[in-house]
């Protein structure tokens, strides 16, 4: 059967991609941020996954407000990076793990989730930036992807518990996938930020650091928080952090936190990263 080799979490702030595009990686503003990802990039290079399942939210670039799926899964062979209005980025297309995607969709419906199934769809910075942070800017991506789109923009957004349950089904899908594929899960979004209203610019460094410390050993408190709690603690856009619960829910109860990194502000966001492995990993 396929193997879940690790769970990673990261922010997906668009300015990160812009900084890379403009060659700002080693400027004083950005170097400490990017350097913090080096251990995760090394982990990825050493562990050589075949498939990356990426949980992220589209930002109106693939889905507009005319139709908003709460949950969507890509089953394509290929995904193009979206031009979000500033011109095309020098990011290669993403190859899709379509066979595993279909298996996952089958398992989702079997377990009473009802995703929108997407055969042709482009992916925005929500997926591009995490891939660049963990894999750099290769000529071709070394993994195939399964994109999972979660609505975190238009309310109602899904509950933290639902994200956790989605992770449980993802885990069962990996364990019932009869290949030798090595799979990583990337939960993306957050950490604290708020882009709108008079509280715009709200950051909560203490809560962000606690999240990185606790999401491995003590995820229960985050699973049982309400959406209002997320908005209050992490800011309106920081509520995206619920998507990390898909990753965490897919992992074992006992995990090792191998790497973590925090930097604020990246643009207007508390930016964080984590690498988890199951404690009893083979």
């Amino acid at each position, binding site marked *: 059967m396929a193997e879940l080799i690790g769970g990673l979490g990261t922010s997906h702030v668009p*300015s990160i991609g812009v900084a890379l595009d403009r060659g700002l990686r080693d400027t*004083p*503003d950005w170097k400490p941020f990017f350097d913090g990802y080096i251990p995760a990039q090394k982990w990825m290079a050493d562990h050589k996954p075949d498939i990356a399942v990426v949980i992220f939210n589209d*930002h*109106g*670039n693939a889905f*507009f*407000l005319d139709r908003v799926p709460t949950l969507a899964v890509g089953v394509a062979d290929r995904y193009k990076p979206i*031009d*979000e*209005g*500033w011109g095309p980025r020098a990011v290669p297309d993403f190859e899709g793990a379509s066979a595993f995607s279909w298996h996952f969709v089958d398992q989702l419906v079997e377990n009473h989730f009802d995703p929108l199934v997407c055969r042709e769809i482009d992916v925005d910075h929500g997926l591009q930036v995490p891939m660049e942070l963990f894999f750099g800017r290769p000529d071709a991506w070394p993994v195939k992807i399964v994109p999972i789109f979660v609505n975190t*923009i*238009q*309310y*109602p*957004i899904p509950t933290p518990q639902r994200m956790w349950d989605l992770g449980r089904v993802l885990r069962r899908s990996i364990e019932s996938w009869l290949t030798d594929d090595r799979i990583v899960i990337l939960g993306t979004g957050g950490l604290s930020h*708020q*882009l*709108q*209203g*008079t*509280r*715009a*610019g*709200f*950051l909560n*460094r203490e809560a962000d650091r606690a999240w990185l410390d606790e999401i491995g050993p003590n995820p229960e408190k985050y699973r049982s928080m309400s*959406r*209002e709690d997320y*908005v*209050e603690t992490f*800011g*309106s856009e920081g509520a995206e952090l619920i998507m990390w619960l898909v990753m965490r829910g897919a992992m074992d109860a006992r995990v090792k936190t191998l790497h973590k990194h925090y930097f*604020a*502000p990246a*643009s*207007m966001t508390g930016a964080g990263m984590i690498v988890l492995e199951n404690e009893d990993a083979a």
Partner: protein
Amino acid sequence: MSDQIPETPLFVRSHGDIGYPLNKMAMSLCQAENREAFKADEEAFLDRYGLSADQKRAVMDRDWEAMVRLGGNLFFILKISAIDPVPITAIGAAQAGMSHDDFVYGRLGKVRHG
């Protein structure tokens, strides 16, 4: 889920309803031909999407606080800054009602380099 957290507008139905023309117009700017049309005759372009008079004024004044108050969602209205470049921190400062420096170095706590 209700929209009752202080100073924190969530994109609930009421915002979505009034903001729909504004957000739809903004997202159309992802296409180059629409960016050209916007630049050529901004008001005529806004009329195509049926923006209210207040929404039109907010866009033409680049009044980011008003755009959000009138149903704009930042992820959408941000596309206007692809035509008329402005850092997202300036949009944030406008909503917070702060100067850009106070917002960036005070509220966000950015470290000064040189």
